[in-house]
């Protein structure tokens, strides 16, 4: 009998965490802060990695870690309620338990990007897995060149982390550009898909590394635009999403051509998957 002590090597066993805070980001998206029920557990992860979160009696699902990697006493997730499991997750109350497996998968190339400009391009909830990377760059500001954040959402009320976006923009050598598909009254910012922001971006392709996360269609357009801007395919990274049941390469659900998104991804070098992105129903 294995008790949930946290000292186990079975990657299929969830570890008990409890909800410490739930913050509303948008009408359907919430950020949850979880802390381990067994205090000795440290939660170290690489920006871009994800966990499998389990709600008792409901089910388990993959969610990216969206918190600050320097804070190892907690795990932070930003969840958009789209179905049964995500709905249950965002409705957890402070003090209630959530099972956590992971962290799993590959992270953003934070090391490889040292000394270079970093271009972050996000669509919708796709900003969540990129936030840890943004924290890391800003905390080690001297290790990186310019930071460029291009972010698009459907409407102003669906923008995540609005206060932080403004705060990030106040850092030196940092440019934050935000756009929405439909502005509505009172919106004075950009309107249009995220690729339209490139003409306002102060971008120097040569020393830059780009990291992209959003709906697949958006990533197709953004990667193409980044290539047009002069970035080489080797310097563009994207994060992919597929159905996942185990996150350790056994269930087969997340196969993407020759790759398993759970263990070979979710973050891929664009060059690795460029041909696959064009294939319908792969």
């Amino acid at each position: 009998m294995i008790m949930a002590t946290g000292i186990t090597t079975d990657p299929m066993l969830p570890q008990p965490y409890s909800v410490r805070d739930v913050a509303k980001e948008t009408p359907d998206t919430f950020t949850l802060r979880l802390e381990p029920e067994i205090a000795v557990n440290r939660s170290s992860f690489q920006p871009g990695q994800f966990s499998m979160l389990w709600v008792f009696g409901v089910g388990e699902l993959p969610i990216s870690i969206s918190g600050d990697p320097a804070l190892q006493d907690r795990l932070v997730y930003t969840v958009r309620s789209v179905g049964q499991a995500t709905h249950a997750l965002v409705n957890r109350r402070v003090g209630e338990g959530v099972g956590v497996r992971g962290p799993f998968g590959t992270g953003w190339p934070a090391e490889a990007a040292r000394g270079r400009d970093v271009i972050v391009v996000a669509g919708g909830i796709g900003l969540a897995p990129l936030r840890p990377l943004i924290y890391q760059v800003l905390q080690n500001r001297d290790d990186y060149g310019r930071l460029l954040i291009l972010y698009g959402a459907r409407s102003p009320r669906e923008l995540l982390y609005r206060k932080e976006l403004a705060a990030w923009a106040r850092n030196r050598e940092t440019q934050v550009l935000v756009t929405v598909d439909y502005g509505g009254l009172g919106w004075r910012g950009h309107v249009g898909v995220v690729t339209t922001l490139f003409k306002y971006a102060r971008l120097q392709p040569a020393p830059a590394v780009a990291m992209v996360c959003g709906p697949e269609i958006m990533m197709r357009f953004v990667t193409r635009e980044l290539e047009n801007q002069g970035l080489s395919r080797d310097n563009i990274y994207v994060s992919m999403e597929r159905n996942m049941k185990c996150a350790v390469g056994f269930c087969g659900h997340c196969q993407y051509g020759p790759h398993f998104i759970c263990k070979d991804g979710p973050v891929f070098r664009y060059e690795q998957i460029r041909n696959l992105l064009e294939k319908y129903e792969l």
Partner: protein
Amino acid sequence: MAHRSEHVLGVDQLGKLIGVLARKGYEVIGPTVRDGAIVYDHVESAEDLPAGWTDEQEPGRYRLKRREDMALFGYAVGPQSWKKYMHPAEVRLWSAERQGGTFRILNNEVKPQRPHALLGARACELAAIAVQDRVLLEDKYRDPIYDQRREGAFIIAVQCTQAAATCFCASMGTGPQVSGGFDLVLTELIGPEGHRFLVATGSDRGVEVLTELEAVPATEEDRQQAEAGVEAARQQVRSIDTTGIKELLYKNFEHPRWDNVASRCLTCANCTMVCPTCFCTSVEDVTDITGDHAERWRRWDSCFTQSFSYIHGGSVRTSAKARYRQWMTHKLASWIDQFGSSGCVGCGRCITWCPVGIDITEEVGAIRDGGKDGNP
């Protein structure tokens, strides 16, 4: 590796072999006749083995037939493979109890059980076990359930001396000759010298078991007869030309043949259930009526189901075309990139057990030949 010091066991020794294995603590699993097919199940004695039976297989068709002799292993392969025991169709991963707002994981299910002795594993089946080893043990993570079952298993391979019409192991390089991955290997010999088995050992455990049996040194005739048997099994009507097969399938992601096969495929998932290498699973949480007790079960799943590729907003592979293409391309192409070998060992089960007789060898052939309408 088959030690060259081969011996011969009389047919009467087979019952004794089963007894020795049971005494050593193994649950012996072997071929037995049930519901008109040869299936793997618990065998108590040699009486349970399919003496005098053989199988006739064609696309979409399987039939048992009487043999003229009383061979115990005179068939090719049945619908089941050993994955039924090594990677079971259903396992409970853990259970949990609600405690206030939180929970406690109670146990995980690597349940103590008797190790299995697999009696009658074919060359293609050993190859399939090696394929599953690469997936479940030798990649980034180890599956503790498979690990525990696999590690304890004692394997008695039996050489094929005839192939079914659906077999194509020779072209896949996985058979019919057993060449490793066993504790004991038998070749069934029937002739004027009587009904007997040529036996070789492949491990120390195998040697230990063999010393408890009454074996006599093999003669040159025994060896020649065994070789002729395997040679006979090499005569196969089906084959896949595997040259450049990965590139062939990657290159033909769009090909009219996929529409052609999709018009016949029922997406019933039979092929994935009978395939000895298919490993995909799903997990399901079940909660009891009080809502205080939850269990997580892992069950075989199939890329032929619509839900397999579901992500919020819809499934990735909605069409039968995309699902058949995923299955075959995975088996024969992406598997090579993922695990360093083909995912198909040429056992032919998917051909026999497809209700509409779709034949993977024919599908590959049609893609290789090009044809615009995808007709063979």
